[in-house]
């Protein structure tokens, strides 16, 4: 196994030791209890709400893991001073960093996969237990495979968030890294507003700056097709492919930046 692979597997084992996978229990309990409560709270729309909740939970749990584990990946090694031991081994800094990244992405993939299975299990139960006339009013079957499109894009989004968290953690404290990562994630949802800024202000320079920022800041809104898949709206494959390519390219760019910063960092 390559050096990156060894580091990645260790990160995954560490996340298991740190009980990160406990979130899966929380996810399952949340989904099952809410699917029961929803029937009491709202007239109809149970499946839509379960789908919305399931997808939002996969996204939110993944985001929390990506941010709060991502920011500690490098910092913990520095804090424990184990970074000196690690870097004295035949391992390049970029291998260490990319291994950390791949390890957290592996944790996220396993997390998201298990959450997806639990999600589909709840939906399958609803499909089986719902009367025919109720099922007929759904725009798509409860276990619609198109939901996987949204989950795939959530995963790509999480890969990008992990890269950003790792980037900030190479030069700042965990608290600051978390704030910066969440900040970038939030700003990444306002791309449309940045693009339309010119319509609300008179200064052409400010409008151009806002438009420029719109192209630079990661466009996290592009990864969100949850609403469309839940309502069985068409999500073209080309859109998914383009967004996936964008996410991978952006994550690669941020990781490269992280490698450069980390390579220049003085640990003496």
């Amino acid at each position, binding site marked *: 196994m390559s050096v990156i692979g060894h580091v990645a597997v260790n990160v995954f084992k560490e996340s298991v030791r740190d009980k990160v996978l406990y979130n899966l229990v929380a996810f399952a309990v949340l989904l099952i209890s809410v699917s029961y409560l929803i029937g009491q*709270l*709202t*007239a*109809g*729309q149970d499946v*839509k*709400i379960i789908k*919305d*909740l399931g*997808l*939002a939970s996969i*996204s*939110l749990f993944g985001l929390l893991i990506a941010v709060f584990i991502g920011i500690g990946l490098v910092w913990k090694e520095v804090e424990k001073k184990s970074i000196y031991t690690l870097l004295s081994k035949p391992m390049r800094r970029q291998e260490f960093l990319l291994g950390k990244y791949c390890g957290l992405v592996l944790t996220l993939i396993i997390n998201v996969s298990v959450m997806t299975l639990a999600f589909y299990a709840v939906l399958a139960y609803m499909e089986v237990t719902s009367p025919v006339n*109720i099922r007929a*009013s759904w*725009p798509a079957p409860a276990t619609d495979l198109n939901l996987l499109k949204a989950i795939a894009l959530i995963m790509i989004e999480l890969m990008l968030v992990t890269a950003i968290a790792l980037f900030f953690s190479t030069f700042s404290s965990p608290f600051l890294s978390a704030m910066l990562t969440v900040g970038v994630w*939030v700003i990444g*949802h*306002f791309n449309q*507003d940045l693009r339309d800024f010119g319509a609300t202000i008179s200064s052409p320079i400010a409008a151009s700056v806002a438009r420029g920022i719109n192209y630079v800041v990661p466009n*996290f*809104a592009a*990864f*969100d097709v*949850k*609403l469309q898949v*839940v*309502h069985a*709206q068409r999500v073209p494959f080309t859109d998914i492919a383009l967004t996936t390519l964008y996410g991978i390219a952006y994550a690669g760019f941020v990781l490269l930046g992280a490698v450069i910063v980390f390579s220049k960092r003085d640990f003496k």
Partner: protein
Amino acid sequence: MKVHPGAWVALVALFAVVVGLQVLQARQRPLGLPPGVSANMLYVRSPQFMQRAALSFDALVADIYWIRTVQHYGGTKLSRDPNKQFDMLYPLLDLTVSLDPYFDVAYKFGSVFLAEQFPLGASRPDQAIAILQKGLRATPDNWERAQQVGFVYYWWRVDYEAAGNWFNRAADMTNAPNWLRPLAAVTLAQGGNRATSRTLWMEIARNADADWLRDQAKFRLTQLDAMDGIEFIEGIVQQYRARTGKLPSSWEDLVRAGFLRRVPDDPSGKPYRLDASTGKVTLDPGSSLNPLPDPAHRL
């Protein structure tokens, strides 16, 4: 480190105190409000703000507002407060459909309960139309939205020309059912009639995925059945008059003459009332089907 046994006792005691205080608080009488002032609160009313604040969780936030809408409607409908009002129905539905423009049931619910007369709804057909038109802007080829706008004009605005035009517009849209075009033609030519009304309410009952909506449609269909019943019995009264030369003084006259087997009941089980001086048949004041649709409907 060993935990002092007293700490456990203190923990349990403090927990009991917290729960006890909460029970006391719950028993406190809520502070009263001046008459006419709504106790309903909605912190955010701007859909634009909420769309941004929800980030990528807009669908989930829409669900939360939808649940609040249902709770608000149900709570207000069941409330015995003389000042009760459906003042939150429009802002809640507006937030719901702004966050999730495909939220089909919110439009169906809104088009009926915003327009329905108080105490069944908010008596605001204008708001019902506004919500539906917002939906049409989001999905311009959705025939159901256009048909629902037509229905609000038809039933609550009693504007048959606008209703017929909206039905026509709906019929032009993709996947529109073939019954819409004749419906539009009949509405434009004849205005309101019971068969058209029945078609529209049956469509709501068939497609409703919210219990209240289905129940409301069934209620309206039962009212139309009652109106059929009234018309039929009034015909019998006229037959009696033609044979005897006078109006029946009571149901018993009609039963004795063999026109009826027994005193007729409306679909809710209450006996119809006969006005001996005019021969008009009406619902019993205690019937749950009251009030029947406004005579302006010409049904």
